Each structure stands twice: as C-alpha cells, then as structure tokens.
C-alpha cells in the first residue's frame, strides 16, 4: 500500500514537473491525404520526442476551406488551437486581429533570416515579428506529361510556346488521346489561367494584375491575349471535366488516357503512388514560356497567442523542428514540395524537386518569382473568390468574350474590396 502511494505521489510530482516545461498543443491542419498524413505524423513524432503532446486536429477537404471554417468558429468562441495551418495573406489578417503570438525567439536562435527566402518569410511576419513558420514551397507551374502518349502521337517533347502547344494538341487528339487532362473546378480553372497568364505576361505583369489587381493591367492587351489562350485550351480537354477532382485528372495522365496536366507539384504524389519514376515513366516540365518562372504556394504553421509558458515553449520547439534540415528534407520528400530552407541539400530528392529548386533560384534572380493567386498567396479571400468567379464563368461560357471577362474582373475585384 505504501509503495503504491509513493508511486502515485511520484507520478504526480513527475507530471507536475513535466508540465512546467512540456505541454499539450493542439495543431489544426489539413494534411490528411496519404503522403501528407505521413509527413504530418513525422512532425508529431519529433515533437513528442521533445516531451510535448501533439493533439491532432486534422480537418480534411477543400484545400483548407473546411479547416479555416472550423478555425474561425473556434476563434470566435475564444478557444483557438495553439497552432494552425494558415496560408499567405490570411496570416496577416489573423495577426492584425490580434490572435497570433510571437516566435521571434526561435527565429533568432536558429537564424531564420539567414536561410529563408525573404519573399516567403514576409508572409509569416506580422509587424516585423515572426508569428508563423513556413514549412515548404510548392511550385504551381508544372506540366505533368506521359511520354508514351506523346511519343505515340508523334510529339517529341512538351511544347515550350502556346502555338506549339496547340499544334501538338491537334496531333495528340488525332492519335486518339486527350491532350490536356483537367478538372472543372474553379480553383483548377484559375490554376491553369494563372500559369497561362504568367507565361504570356511575365513576372512584373503578373504582379501588377494579380497581386496589385491594377485595373489597367487587368484590361490590358496582355490580359486579353492570356484570356483568349486560356479559353482556347478548353478545346484541348475532354467533355467530362465538370466537377472532376484534380487527382482523377492526374490518373488520366497516369493511365495513358491523356497526355498532359497543368497542376502544382503535389500531383507528384499520385505518380509516386502509382510506382512511377520521374524522367522515365512521367515527365515534369515547365508550361510554355514559364521555364524561368516560379509560381509558389507555401504552407505555414501559425502560432496563436497562448498564456501558458509550457505551450509557448512547445510552440517554439515546434517551430524550430519544422525548420530543422532533417525534417525539411524528409517532410518535403513526402509532400512533393521543396524545402523552404535554401541551405538544405536536395541530393536525396527526385529530378522534379531538383528542377523546382533550380527554377526557384533563377526566378528569384530574374523577377519571375510570383505568388499563386489560385492558391491563396496573392490576394485576400474575397478578392480571390471574385477572380475565381469571373475566370471560371468565362471558361465555361462559350459566348463570353475576353474583353467582357476583363471588364468583369475589374468590377468584381472592386466589389470584393
């Protein structure tokens, strides 16, 4: 009996001591699909090795839409999780409303400013202080191609101009394949459009149109040309795109039904799951005219303002774990993205990731590094939604002209302001 009491007291003491340094933190994220869930689990294990407890709060679906809805309701009820996956300009909005904490301590200790690209790090700072930690960099402008289908259609390589693309598409169509696999969902339409536009207009034009939402740029001839090229792409797709998910479109490329797909590098996970090797069974090539450009989408973990010292410590530990070279390498290999740390070697990564990093470096030097509007990196939610509405409606309405669409872009964006 005595020993039991002693044991119990000891255990109590141990937990009490433990609580002073370690704590349970709740982490809201939407890393729920195969490779992503594995990647998230890795982070959980590493955090728990430091003595903290990771309370998983995964909300699947809708590229984070559902997770954001849950986060808002939790925040309104005064009970936000300690850590939440938030993206792009939204971090600023949460920060300005006073919800986020400050993790400068971790940033200073590890020297984040030395190895993070400034443009990416800017998203994670609120009033000059780090409130979030970036996890990865996805490249949006990729074409995923099935080389066998291209060969069977007499197309030598993935075209590098839009004229060549439409010529190749005709050949592929004649050979009995679908030239471009696509899913008719607003964000997918917008993804394809922004890739077309950044190629035709270049980095400065893209930033004017899709970051500043400058009315002149939105109605310029470059914009009209981009819209027309985008609409022409509708003819290179099949008739059944309505509502199709992106991974179904990817599987059409994998199965040899379609030749190419324009999609961010998370598509790589589908090819990997099908047991295919990049460069041999499938190819990743920059879409026409975007070879030296890089449209990025980064995930960040934002740290909410917490009072408990243990939880604050857990947040700092989590932040420095996320940016540890080890974790950066293993997480991004599972996720398909590239490390957000510029000093992590990519020796173990596949060819597509290496190409992605090269493109990133070149784009950063030449001004071709742009935030993806389709993936919530460029403008606020409401403006993004307004742009989606116009793009997807233009794409699906055979009678709407590019000029009308451009004018609607301007008025829709203004209305969402």
């Amino acid at each position: 009996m005595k020993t039991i009491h002693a044991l119990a007291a000891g255990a109590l003491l141990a937990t009490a001591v433990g609580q002073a340094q370690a704590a349970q933190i709740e982490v809201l994220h939407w890393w729920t699909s195969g490779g992503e869930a594995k990647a998230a689990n890795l982070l959980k294990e590493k955090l728990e090795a430091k003595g903290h407890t990771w309370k998983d709060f995964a909300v699947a679906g809708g590229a984070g839409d559902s997770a954001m809805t849950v986060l808002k309701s939790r925040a309104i009820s005064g009970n936000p999780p300690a850590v939440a996956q938030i993206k792009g300009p939204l971090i600023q909005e949460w920060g300005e409303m006073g919800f986020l904490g400050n993790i400068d301590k971790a940033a200073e200790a590890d020297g984040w400013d030395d190895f993070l690209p400034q443009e990416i790090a800017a998203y994670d700072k609120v009033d000059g202080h780090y409130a979030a930690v970036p996890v990865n960099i996805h490249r949006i402008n990729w074409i995923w191609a099935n080389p066998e289908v291209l060969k069977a259609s007499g197309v030598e390589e993935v075209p590098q101009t839009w004229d060549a693309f439409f010529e190749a598409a005709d050949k592929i169509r004649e050979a009995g394949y679908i030239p471009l696999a696509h899913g008719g969902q607003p964000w997918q339409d917008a993804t394809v459009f922004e890739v077309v536009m950044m190629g035709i207009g270049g980095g400065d034009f893209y930033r004017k149109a899709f970051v500043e939402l400058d009315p002149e740029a939105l109605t310029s001839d470059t914009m009209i040309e981009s819209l027309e090229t985008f609409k022409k792409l509708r003819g290179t797709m099949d008739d059944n795109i309505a509502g199709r998910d992106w991974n179904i479109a990817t599987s059409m490329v994998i199965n040899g039904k379609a030749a190419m797909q324009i999609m961010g590098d998370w598509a790589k996970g589908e090819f990997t799951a099908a047991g295919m090797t990049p460069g041999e069974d499938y190819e990743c090539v920059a879409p026409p005219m975007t070879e030296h450009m890089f449209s990025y989408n980064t995930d960040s973990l934002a740290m909410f303002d917490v009072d408990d010292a243990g939880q604050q410590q857990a947040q700092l530990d989590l932040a420095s774990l996320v940016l540890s070279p080890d974790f950066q390498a293993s997480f991004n290999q599972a996720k398909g993205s590239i490390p957000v740390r510029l000093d992590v070697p990519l020796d173990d990564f596949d060819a597509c990731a290496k190409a992605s990093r090269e493109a990133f470096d070149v784009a950063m030097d030449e001004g071709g590094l742009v935030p993806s509007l389709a993936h919530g990196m460029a403008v606020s939610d409401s403006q993004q939604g307004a742009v989606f509405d116009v793009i997807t409606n233009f794409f699906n309405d055979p009678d709407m002209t590019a000029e009308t669409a451009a004018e609607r872009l301007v008025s829709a964006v203004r209305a969402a302001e």
Partner: protein
Amino acid sequence: MSPHVSSPRVGGKGRRRSLAGQVERFLPRLVVAPSLAVALFFVYGYMLWTFVLSLTDSRMLPQYDFVGFAQYARLFANERWNVAATNLVVFGGLFIVSCLVIGLLLAIFLDQRIRQEGALRTIYLYPMALSLIVTGVVWRWLLNPGLGIQALVRSWGFEDFTFNWLVDSDMAIYTLVIAAVWQASGFVMALFLAGLRGIDDSLFQAAALDGASLPRIYLRIVLPSLRPVVFSAVMILAHIAIKSFDLVMALTGGGPGYATDLPATFMYAHTFTRGQIGLGSASAIMMLCGVLAILVPYLYSELRGQRNG
C-alpha cells in the same frame, strides 16, 4: 380553466383537487417552456443576429462597425447574386409545378384500383428515402456526357445524340430540376393519394349518374376538394427549393462557372469560405425575405379561406 370553476364547488376535497388542477395547468407550460426558449434563442435569436451582422462591415470574423444597408447595395450589384436569385426563381418555379403535376397524375392513375398498387406506391415513394447528396451524385453520373445517358445512347449506335446539359452553363440549372423532381414527386404523389382516398365515392357515383365524364369529374369535383393537399405540398416543396444546398453541391458544385448557384450556396461561399460575413448575412436575410414574401400572402389567403368556408 379559471379557478372560479373548480374551487368553490367541492369544499375541503377541492383544495387538493385545485392543487392537482394547478399542476395540471402549469405542467404543459412547464414542459413546453424549455423547447420554446430553445427555439426562440436558436431560431429567432440567430435570425436577429444575422440581421445585425448584415448591417456591419464584418469580414472574416463578426465585428460591429455598422455601415447601414451598404452590404445590401453590394449584394444587388453582385453579378453572382443576380445569377443565384434568377436561378432560384427558375428552379423553384419549375420544381414546384413539375412535382405537383407529376405527383397528381401519378396519384390519379394509382387511384384507379390497379393491381399491385402497394408495390408501385413504394417504388414511387422510395426516392424520398434517399438523401439529396445521394440523389445528386447518382444524377451527376447519369448526366455526365461521357459516362451516363449520352454515352449509353451513343453506344447503341446513335452517334449524334447529345445530352450534355450538365456541362452547358445555360442548361445546367434544369439538371437540378430533373434530379429534385425525381426525388420529391413520389412524396407529392403520396400526399395526393391520401387526399383522393378521403373523397367520398358517392360523389363520383352521383356525378357519373348526372352524365359527367371522368376528366370532368376530376377537374370540377376532385381537384377543388384537394386544395388543402396542394397547400401542404406547396409549403413543403417551397422550403425544399429555397434551402436547396446539398443537391447543388453534389450535382453541379454550383458550376459550370457559377451557372447553377442558388442563394443558399452563395450565402455559404461568402460567409464561410470567402471571409465576407457581412455580405453573406445580407444574402441570408434576403433569402428569409423571399420565403416570407411567398409564404405570408399564401398562408393568409389559405387560412382565411378555410375560416370562411
């Protein structure tokens, strides 16, 4: 039920009875009170809150900087809202009318003392047992030009057959009508059938003796007496139409573009995913006004008619 009735009559014993009477009087109120409070709070309280929010500049989270009716002005300038409102008129009108017509015809045919009526009734009624999500997914497959009806007919050799409403932004709204009518008309049939069974056979016989033809009997005698059934059916169908959300999400996702957006999907998108709570609340209040604008006059005329007749 006033105390004057019960207490003076039976003296001493009456005391206990009046206590029982008191309990009897208050018990129903007591039992109903919590649910009333809950309904008041969660339905009417939140309606009020939504209205308050629609007058504010709320974006991602609710906040209380009042801007008057500016959100309503923005709403009516919004191209997508106009599409959604027009769609509701088209969808709601066609849906209610088609369900009533098909339901009534099915009920009249079933009422002709045919064999296996029970089995047929069950078959027609079954779609109602499915959730709208299931209906939406099934019809999405059926209407998909590459998988469903179009592909089937083409495989029979009719190469030029096209039925691609689902991907045609002008026609997509009608696919919603098709799926919703398929789901709900069996239920309307059951309502009408019950109404028909309630009509006295002697009415038919009397009319037949007078030499009225069968269509005439239905038009002049049966339909007027089914008026209360039409009333309930319209009530139920109208609210299904206005709150339609799951069917749109499953069948078209609001697309192509936003061609099949309805006010409910508009409200959800703006309030919850686009961080425009003010605008979303304004659209929710407009939906409420739409419901009231249709239902109040209808209720008024129907209920007044019943009282007079």
